[in-house]
């Protein structure tokens, strides 16, 4: 092929940037910033190039790169991109440079950027790899830079939070690895597409001891556990609030926007296609857990006095909607008729919600970071008052992010949540009705945050608070603009994923 290996470029350009920053001699701080930002922006540039060549109507992976790698284990270097991967790559391309830009003033920026770019490349690898072997390498590799970003650049409780985050996630991944080891021994391949094929026609289950055998169940649960911790699925979420809260702003932005999507991606790309029947059997229970995340995540957020913990809990709530939709679809698979329409809506909603949550949660973390930076590291909900009086631009941008997060129609968050609710209602009406309470709780805690911090008299850490200059607002502006644009014209994203999710819903035994 004469064409550029765009997908490899996507992964390796940030890594190249990281290596160059780490190994080349120290330059001026400004040069480091420019270089790191360029390396991070490479994702957006390549993603836009991919967008031009991408054909939404084809549901199979595109831009495929497949090379034999380890013959003895039948491992291929296999990258591919479909609509799901594409929107996550676009999200990474948008959020990563903004997160890096938000971290320009962190100490020892060169090291920060090297770790950050490593993390960025690894996350992209997860979204593109189609072979478990290097997918898992990317998956685990993302933890190491995240660990150091939290531990070195984080807040006072960072060491413990980072430790818990890494051990908990690795603990989950260990089961995932074990599960895949036995899958490999049964099927002789690590290739996602082949495994999905075997999963769909039931031969994988036979090789693992037949439907209902305890070994098959154990393998399924192992993979489930690894992914559930990563998302996280309630109640495996307790590592998340401390990790997000203690991480530096830029890392929090990336963790919530991109890394939390790795887990949901895993559910869609791995668990559901390879274990359709097992997931269907477990779906009622999993829906209860997802509802737990929707409701208790939102109500838990209400009790937080640390604003970063509050935003972290809201992420638990928002990601649980994605999982709820997926579990509802898995639960209903095999049924015919109107279910297919509801399933299409639920899956579209899931994908849109992944993107939209990435934008709004990252923006909210950025805004809390601004509060923190300008008040000498205070970020308690009662530490401020009347910020809108002294910083109208900052308040306006935070307001858009907040209303996007609470799903106000006209902004992006609504479209995804509406489709999820529309789909889940068609598949499991009771679950949709209960989950709707989460929308109320989200409105309550976000508006309480807004009331306490931005409204009222100018008190606490607010006097002397300076409004954002336009330059400082730059990392936030693209996200804010997209929140409005995608709220009014969701076709921009929906057009990329609709054929894919329609095909998934059509088979209800996905690719």
């Amino acid at each position, binding site marked *: 092929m004469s064409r550029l290996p765009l997908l490899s470029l996507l992964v390796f350009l940030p890594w190249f940037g990281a290596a160059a920053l780490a190994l080349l001699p120290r330059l001026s701080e400004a040069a480091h910033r420019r270089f790191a930002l360029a390396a991070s922006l490479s994702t957006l540039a390549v993603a836009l190039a991919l967008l031009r060549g991408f054909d939404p109507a084809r549901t199979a992976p595109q831009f495929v790169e497949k090379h034999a790698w380890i013959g003895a284990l039948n491992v291929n270097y296999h990258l591919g991109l479909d609509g799901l991967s594409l929107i996550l790559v676009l999200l990474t391309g948008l959020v990563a440079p903004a997160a890096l830009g938000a971290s320009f003033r962190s100490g020892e920026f060169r090291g920060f950027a090297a770790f950050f770019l490593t993390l960025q490349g690894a996350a992209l690898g997860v979204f593109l790899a189609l072979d478990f072997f290097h997918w898992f390498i990317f998956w685990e590799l993302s933890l190491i830079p995240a660990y150091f970003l939290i531990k070195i650049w984080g807040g006072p409780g960072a060491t413990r939070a980072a*430790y818990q985050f*890494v*051990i908990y996630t*690795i*603990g989950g991944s260990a089961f995932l*690895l*074990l599960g895949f*080891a*036995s899958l*490999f*021994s*049964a099927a002789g391949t690590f290739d996602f597409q082949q495994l999905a094929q075997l999963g769909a026609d039931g031969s994988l289950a036979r090789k693992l001891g037949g439907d209902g055998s305890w070994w098959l169940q154990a393998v399924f649960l192992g993979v489930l556990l690894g992914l559930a911790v990563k998302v996280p699925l309630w*109640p495996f*979420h*307790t*590592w998340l*609030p401390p990790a997000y809260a203690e991480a530096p702003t830029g890392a929090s932005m990336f963790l919530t926007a991109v890394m939390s999507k790795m887990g949901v991606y895993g559910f869609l790309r791995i668990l559901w296609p390879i274990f359709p029947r097992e997931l269907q059997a477990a779906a009622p229970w999993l829906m209860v857990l997802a509802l737990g995340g929707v*409701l*208790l*995540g939102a*109500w*838990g957020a*209400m*009790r*937080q006095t640390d604003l970063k913990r509050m935003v972290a809990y809201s992420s638990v709530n928002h990601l649980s909607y994605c999982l709820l939709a997926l579990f509802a679809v898995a639960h209903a698979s095999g049924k015919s008729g*109107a279910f297919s*329409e509801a399933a*299409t*809506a639920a899956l*579209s909603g899931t994908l849109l919600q992944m993107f939209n949550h990435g934008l709004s949660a990252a923006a909210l973390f950025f805004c809390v970071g601004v509060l923190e930076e300008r008040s000498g590291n205070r970020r308690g909900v009662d530490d401020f008052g009347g910020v809108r*009086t002294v910083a109208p631009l900052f308040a306006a941008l935070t307001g858009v992010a907040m209303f996007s997060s609470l799903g*106000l*129609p*006209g902004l992006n968050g*609504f*479209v995804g949540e509406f489709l999820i*609710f*529309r789909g889940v*209602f068609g598949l499991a*009406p009771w679950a*949709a009705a209960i989950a709707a*309470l989460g*929308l*109320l*709780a989200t*409105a*309550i805690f976000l*508006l*309480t945050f*807004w*009331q306490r911090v*931005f*409204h009222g*008299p*100018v008190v606490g850490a607010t006097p002397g608070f300076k409004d954002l200059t336009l330059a400082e607002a730059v990392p936030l502006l693209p996200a804010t603009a997209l929140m409005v644009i995608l709220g009014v014209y*969701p*076709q921009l994203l*929906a057009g990329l994923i*609709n054929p894919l999710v*329609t095909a998934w819903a059509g088979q209800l035994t996905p690719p």
Partner: protein
Amino acid sequence: MRVPAHLLWLIPALPLLAAGIGAFAPRTARRTTAGSAIAAMAISFLLSCGALVTALRDPAVHAVHNFAWFDLGHGALRLGWLLDPLTALMGVMVTLVGLLIFIFSAGYMAEDANFKQFFCFLSLFGAAMLGLLVANSLLLLFICWELVGLASYLLIGFWFHQPSAAAAAKKAFITTRIGDLGLLVGLLWLYDATGSLLFFDGGEGVLEAGPLAALSAQTTVGGLAVSTAIGLLIFCGAAGKSGQFPLHVWLPDAMEGPTPVSALIHAATMVAAGVFLIARVYPLLAADLTLPSAPLHALSVVATIGAITALLGAVIAVGQNDIKRILAFSTVSQLGYMMLALGVGSWVTAIFHLLTHAFFKALLFLGAGSVIHAAHHEQDIRRLGGLRAPLRVTFATFAVGMMALAGVPFLFSGFWSKEAILHAAHGWSVSQLPFAAGLIAVVLTAFYTTRLVAEVFLGTPRGEGAARAQESPAVMTVPLVLLAVCAALLGFIGTPWWPWLQRTLDPTFATEPGGFGLMAVSIVLVATGLGAGWALYARIPRSSAGEADPVERRAPRLFAALADRLGFDELYAATVGRLNAWTAAFADALDRRVWDGTVRLLAGLGLFTGQVTRETDENLINGGFDAASGGLRSGGRAYSRGQSGDTHSYLRYIAIGFTLIALAVLLGVRR
């Protein structure tokens, strides 16, 4: 000029453009923002008139223009615009009242530092409200519905540095969102049951005969028809937005917003959106009327809630002392009348009352604004008084509004529309209780309006603000005069002798002869209320602010209960509020104690295992080897140092461990 359905989008788009200009204009661009907002509203008014002309050419037709919003499955999610007399009449009302209030605001808000932002938010509201009217899709209506909620939130909290305003804004948003959850679930159900959310779509729309018949033919929980259940869920949203019992508590607090906002959003237009919504989906709610064995008719619930609200609002209004809160409870009561009319099956009279109420209530609120402006921000009627002489125009116009609200016969619009509602309620076959509630509320309305006018305008000034009052500028009084003209004359489009409005909205509308006895009864009731109010408040006006209210003197505990709004806020704080706080505390405690506790326990087990291994290594294994080999001993020590709690070494061990297990599994199964 004609404005067909496919151009209807222009009507909301122009105020939206003005809002955009307002958002990006510099803070000092006061004239630009106010000018563009007023100009956009004026052009939208002309376009609405064009739309009305177009719609009147064939009132029975629902002209639609549907379009795809985004791809979904094998089709697309479609939205659309709808032009019929209901949309067009509402559009003319909203743009006309809006235009007058925008002009008034330019005077009222002239000294406010955030003048520009005010007009930006007002335009945003105008766009969303007009979008709501022209929507041919419940989803598009819901989107605009939430956006008017946003504008309301922003404008109630416009003086956000005051904690009371910030709290009122939040309360309004949350309370209406409780109702909106019902609306959302109803919308989802409707979508799932019919596969569409378009109102009219060539026979496929949810308000057309085929889908409606299907909806009322299915039953769900408790033997309810699906159409009944969906209708009631939609009504939850309408009840929240239109301040119906038990969700009425936010509306009086919303008076924390600037007075033009109270007039436009919380009296004339947005709060009437719930009534509009029910009128729009009326065929859906009425679909179960033809079922002989339905356990519950959706419209009966609407009528009951409406009657309760009409009475409740009027009762509480008697005991309020804030000029704006009296008007707010009066709005609650009047919206109750409209719901009552919808419930008893006369949606056209509900819309009639909606239109007349919009004008006279906007007039009353702007009149109150003129009073407050003139009296240096004094809102307590006990400290006002004697304003008849200095505020001549305000007094005259306010009196017109007051008589329209009280239903003074013949010359005032409120009389005709309220009369139509009472007539419809009297004819309801299910129960006469709503009719009775409506009659009692008539007396109370006449009573509290008389009290309001007497306290504010008669007697002598009882406060410093009132003593120094001067008439407001022309930019404020001219809109008052125009609104007063409408408030007087608008009733004549729907009299029993010439029910033009009713026939336009519903070509099958038939006037029943008679009803003059009923008219006489209600005239007597109005006279009773006016007379009682006159006797208590106007005959001997209050002489000082500290003097007790005549009703208070006669029934102190009743008056205190009314002044406390019958304790609804306290009740909700003690029940719903506490439940919410408990749930949050539970969620948090569950995380901190149970789930995090489990994680700590597992971590502790891991550490314990590490300890055991280390002790075993050192004492048993190493102890044995020690005697045999000193070299191995140092190796063992090095190994034991690995169990130090150091993250990196733990990571390493975990990786090694699982690689080994993985290999074991691989080899085990191969063999």
